[in-house]
């Protein structure tokens, strides 16, 4: 393979048979091209879904109440479940050591915010300080809520970046200003940004104690959010998450007199389990794409093999001459294999590069939620190169074997 003379022979043969070589390579190049594009799309789908999930902590668990659908202990179905402060306090205390962050939420949809002449309607959420981490929010300026705010029910607010833009435009002097929420003045202490994007930045956070008092919430809360202490492995984390969700579900169903099988009355949503489901799905899609891509390459290999067989047949006399001049059978095998591997690898690399370039140019232009930044990483590119060389060897095997068996006396016979 590193025999320079052989390379010269191969280049000579190829350069004198350009069209033939081009046609041979085309099938392989398109096969690899398709494989790379498919793998890129697979990666893009993974990235797209990952981004959708980035809005919140990866291991967050949400508890939402709903409406009962089953009769239980004499209570009719259709009953709306209302979570209370003590639901949150009890679950928090009960699982204290397992929990990393926790918050209940008292939410007002469409609260009217006003600052000077600007106003708009946003979701106003009464939360605990931990909520910052549950939401993956980071501060652009100022601070988030703290426990003193909760204890003293201070009238302060943290604005989402979108809300800040709407109300304050480009003004830098936001901290310390007062905005009105449903006619009540709140002092701005911070502005946050959220990887979930505009939707998640169109909210404002106030201390939950303040929200319940000011907006007549009493003890009512709308949902619970938790994260568990990190674990070393994904499996451990998933197990802990499932244990916790089961425990919370059982407790809340007992407390609110809900039938054990009534799943719409209390919904416990574990991000970890959802993510797992998505990753499994993506894994399957990727496998499918590999399958399709490999099949395309196999078609290419069969094509190359076929063409090489025809070439060997065409070159029967030439091979006979070479043998008469002293070519060893191994040297003939080497010649055909070398050409086959070189053509497949070169054509495949061209397809690979074209695929990568296309992904590079078109990838960033794709604007859907499902595909984001489709790329093929180095490891995958490397595996396709290995596949190519193997493919070339397979494609060249039968033709080279046939070439080696050509008898010069038959090849050279004058018709």
């Amino acid at each position, binding site marked *: 393979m590193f025999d320079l003379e052989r390379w010269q022979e191969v280049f*000579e043969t190829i350069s004198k*048979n350009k069209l033939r070589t081009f046609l041979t390579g085309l099938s392989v190049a398109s096969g690899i091209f398709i494989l790379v594009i498919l793998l890129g799309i697979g990666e893009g789908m993974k990235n797209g879904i990952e981004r959708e999930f980035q809005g919140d902590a990866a291991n967050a668990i949400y508890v939402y109440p709903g409406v009962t659908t089953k009769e239980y202990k004499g209570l009719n179905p259709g009953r709306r479940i209302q979570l209370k402060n003590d639901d949150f306090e009890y679950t928090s205390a009960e699982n204290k050591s397992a929990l990393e962050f926790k918050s209940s939420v008292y939410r007002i949809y469409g609260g009217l915010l006003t600052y000077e002449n600007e106003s708009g309607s946003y979701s106003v959420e009464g939360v605990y300080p931990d909520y910052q981490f549950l939401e993956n929010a980071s501060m652009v300026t100022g601070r988030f809520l703290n426990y003193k705010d909760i204890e003293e029910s201070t009238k302060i607010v943290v604005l989402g970046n979108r809300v800040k833009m709407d109300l304050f435009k480009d003004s830098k002097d936001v901290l310390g200003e007062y905005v009105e929420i449903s006619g009540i003045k709140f002092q701005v202490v911070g502005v946050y940004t959220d990887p979930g994007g505009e939707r998640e930045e169109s909210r404002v956070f106030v201390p939950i104690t303040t929200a319940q008092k000011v907006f007549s919430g009493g003890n009512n809360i709308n949902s619970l959010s938790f994260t568990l202490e990190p674990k070393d492995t994904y499996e451990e984390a998933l197990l802990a998450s499932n244990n916790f969700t089961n425990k919370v579900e059982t407790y809340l169903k007992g407390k609110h007199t809900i039938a054990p099988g009534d799943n719409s009355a209390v919904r416990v949503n574990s991000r970890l389990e959802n993510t797992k489901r998505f990753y499994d799905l993506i894994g399957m899609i990727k496998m499918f794409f590999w399958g399709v891509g490999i099949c395309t390459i196999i078609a290419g290999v069969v094509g190359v093999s076929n063409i090489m067989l025809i070439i060997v047949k065409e070159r029967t006399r030439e091979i006979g001459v*070479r043998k*008469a*001049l*002293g070519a060893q059978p191994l*040297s003939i095998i080497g010649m055909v294999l070398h050409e086959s591997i070189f053509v497949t690898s070169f054509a495949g690399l061209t397809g690979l590069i074209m695929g990568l370039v296309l992904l590079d140019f078109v990838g960033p232009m794709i604007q859907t939620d499902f595909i984001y930044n489709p790329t093929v990483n180095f490891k995958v590119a490397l595996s396709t190169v290995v596949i190519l060389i193997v493919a070339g060897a397979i494609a060249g095997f039968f033709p080279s074997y046939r070439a080696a068996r050509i008898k010069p006396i038959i090849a050279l016979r004058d018709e």
Partner: protein
Amino acid sequence: MITIKDLHKSYKTGNNSLHVLKGINFNVSEGELVSIMGSSGSGKSTLLNILGMLDEADTGSYTLDGVAIKNLNEKIAARYRNKFLGFIFQSFNLINYKSALDNVALPLYYQGMKRGERMDRAKAYLEKVGLAQWMDHLPNQLSGGQKQRVAIARALASDPKVLLADEPTGALDTKTSYEVMDLIQQINDEGRTILIVTHEPDIAQMTKRIVNLKDGLIIDDTKVNQVRALQNV
């Protein structure tokens, strides 16, 4: 140089067996220029192919330059061909996508010679056959006579003990045939052993010895007074 004893060869086609060579005894010394004559189908090519190790005899012995040629596998046959023999064919058998120079250099490639040296030597042999200025041409840009000269240069390039030519002038007109024969005579004058298969008496007269083949046997083997080809050109 060549000694063959009681050589037999038959071809099997289906159930029939065609006995082509029926006991050939034959010696060639170094520096001879021998023509093998006979009507079509008399087994001339068969004999030459066996001498050229492209085919094997059924029975009989063959010694070339003191080496017993037997039990050949493809690898050994290829090495012996490369080392001992140069072939000249009726239809030239040049590789059509290689230049004259590359064609001549090919046997040297299979000897494992480095490219630079190979090309120098090939050039020298092309000069010898008078085609130095044609070295970059492809075979289809050359006339029949020129092609055969390239083939002769190629056969000479590996400096073989024996040149084997099967109807080397069979595809050429008379004038060109004589020019090619002139070249062959010159090469023989330098001492190289050459065997030519031909069915043309005038070509045979330009060798030094005529071996006549009929029905698989040598019926006549006589030295002749060589006619110089140059006189007839």
